[in-house]
């Protein structure tokens, strides 16, 4: 399967999408369709209120907040170690990846650096949460469009990855493993060999998904040219991660602004796709899982020895200052703006979560599409409600 790369063809796709947005003047009696909060495509409890004209959406408004937990307020009365446990639960499918930027921000304020072994293990676990996260997406995208088989492959193979995360950290979903200055523990015996075997399985899974979905006519027609996001609109709304790369913007924080993780030493590739449609978003994520397995293989081979904890005081007081650290999480750019006033608790934490920005584009994107395409678009944008509501 090759991507559509011809510029003219792409412009036509974009123009068709734009036309659909304008041609809504054939007014019949309007209807309001309420999607969610309990629809499977909403990954939690996002509600979408769509005003319809026939089969076409005139206006769509996402309603968030059903799960708002107030983490920004709560973290003002918790120590950094306690706040890390909260951060863990923001994007619950890629939990470990949420801890990392928060810890890195605290480390920058304290001027502490984790030892190389800790940095490498952090990177391995970071990529493993990405794989566990995106495997679910790859299966889930099929099931949203009516292809039931892939999701069984996904749950089967994600289990192997979660088992490895559990073996190392003790938690399948919420590891809470990252500490200021390093990690809680070292890896268990035999973990590295097992992990490499699991990576082999994940690569097989990617091939299977490609066989099952890509090239299938129904999948192609339901995703190609659906939900096209031009690069400039994507940037204005702050889309990040695979959603942005699927619009042809070549930007990945792992490569472009890698803070405190081991990516610069590795050989891997950032994939982009010029189309900006639902198919492109699926395709980019599929390639990302493959790249992640390569990253983990390389890290397992070159794991340095040494301590896993830098010398940090027992009661952690973070010096006054402000730090912004963001990393390339499974859903996109996840960052924390930490303001400290030298206390045991942060003075203010601004949580910049990827899904909040990724979903804020939906009123623009859903205008003029047909009802079944709402589901395709929501599935391909891929968000987690905890990541929107925080």
């Amino acid at each position, binding site marked *: 399967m090759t991507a559509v790369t011809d510029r003219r063809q792409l412009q036509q796709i974009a123009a068709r999408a734009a036309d659909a947005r304008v041609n809504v003047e054939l007014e019949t009696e309007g209807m309001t369709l309420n999607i969610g909060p309990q629809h499977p495509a909403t990954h939690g409890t996002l509600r979408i209120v769509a005003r319809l004209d026939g089969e076409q959406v005139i206006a769509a408004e996402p309603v968030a907040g059903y799960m708002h937990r107030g983490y920004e307020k709560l973290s003002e009365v918790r120590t950094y170690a*306690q706040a890390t446990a909260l951060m863990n639960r923001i994007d619950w499918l890629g939990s470990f990846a949420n801890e990392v930027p928060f810890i890195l921000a605290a480390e920058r304020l304290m001027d502490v650096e984790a030892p190389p072994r800790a940095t490498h293990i952090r990177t391995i676990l970071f990529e493993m949460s990405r794989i566990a996260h995106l495997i679910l997406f790859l299966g889930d995208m099929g099931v949203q469009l009516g292809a039931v088989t892939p999701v069984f492959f996904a749950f089967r193979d994600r289990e192997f990855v979660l088992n490895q995360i559990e073996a190392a950290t003790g938690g399948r979903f919420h590891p809470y493993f990252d500490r200021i200055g390093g990690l809680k523990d070292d890896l268990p015996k035999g973990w590295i060999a097992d992990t490499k075997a699991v990576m082999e399985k994940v690569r097989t899974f990617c091939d299977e998904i490609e066989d099952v979905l890509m090239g299938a006519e129904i999948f192609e027609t339901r995703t190609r040219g659906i939900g096209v996001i031009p690069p400039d609109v994507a940037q204005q709304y702050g889309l990040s991660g695979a959603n942005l790369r699927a619009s042809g913007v070549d930007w990945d924080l792992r490569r472009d602004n890698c803070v405190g993780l081991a990516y610069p030493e590795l050989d891997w590739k950032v994939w982009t796709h010029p189309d900006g449609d639902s198919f492109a978003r699926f395709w980019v994520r599929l390639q990302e899982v493959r790249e992640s397995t390569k990253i983990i293989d390389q890290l397992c081979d070159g794991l340095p020895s040494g301590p896993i904890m830098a010398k940090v005081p027992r009661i952690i007081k973070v010096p006054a200052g402000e730090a912004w650290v963001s990393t390339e999480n499974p859903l996109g750019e996840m960052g924390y703006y930490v303001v400290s006033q030298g206390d045991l608790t942060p003075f203010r934490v601004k949580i910049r979560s990827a899904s909040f920005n990724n979903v804020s584009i939906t009123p623009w994107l859903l205008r003029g599409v047909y009802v079944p395409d709402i589901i395709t678009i929501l599935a391909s944008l891929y968000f987690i409600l905890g990541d929107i509501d925080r």
Partner: protein
Amino acid sequence: MADDAATTDAATETPEEEVEAVQPDELREGIVARFGDLLGDALVDSLIDPGVDLTIRVRTDAWRAAADVARNHLGARYFCFLSAIDWLPSPYGRSMDSEVDTVLAAQAGDVAEPRSSEIVQGTTGGDTRFQVFARVAHLNGDGGFWGITIKADVPDDSLTVESWVPIYAGADWHEREAWEMFGLTFTGHPGLRNIYLPSGFEGHPLRKDYPLLSRMVKPWPGIVDVEPMPTDDEDGDGGGAAAEGSAEGGDS
């Protein structure tokens, strides 16, 4: 590839700190200079963390103009986030590391010294209780990757700043959040209404003087739970993890 500049940027960040202290960050200094040219004296302050980060503060009336400069003159087309900070020190409860809970002590009438209510602004300073801040970035392309945090004071009497929505469409939801959480108004926003909270919610939860009810009902147990720690010099490295393990235990 176009990202060469950015990669070397990141690479120099950790191992060559001494060298960096000597080498000025030309990329970020150039950006500040452009802001200075285009905004004039509306650019109040700037802070460069060489090779890492950049923060500037602009005058309130230049808040939207700063966004315009960043996006349309400097090419920072990527909108990251927009939010606010309340610099008032929290008037509630015991600070985590103080021996006395000031609220309880004040109720009993034997407050030793009331908590300082002096407002201390962070980096790049400020004059008001509330500040808005936002982050935008220039993604790959000619100049490599850079990001910038832009701050501005919010006047205490009106609590109003200009909206960024005409420049960055993505600021819409972020301003709605700042509106309900801090009570700030953004002029020119297409529709300020609740995003997380139910409509009709009273108060602005992220203001420092908004009480966190769970803390009011049950005082913070942290200070009483912490046992005296053994002195630091016995075992250096394993200690940090062990100490945090016990903190976890106390929490549950």
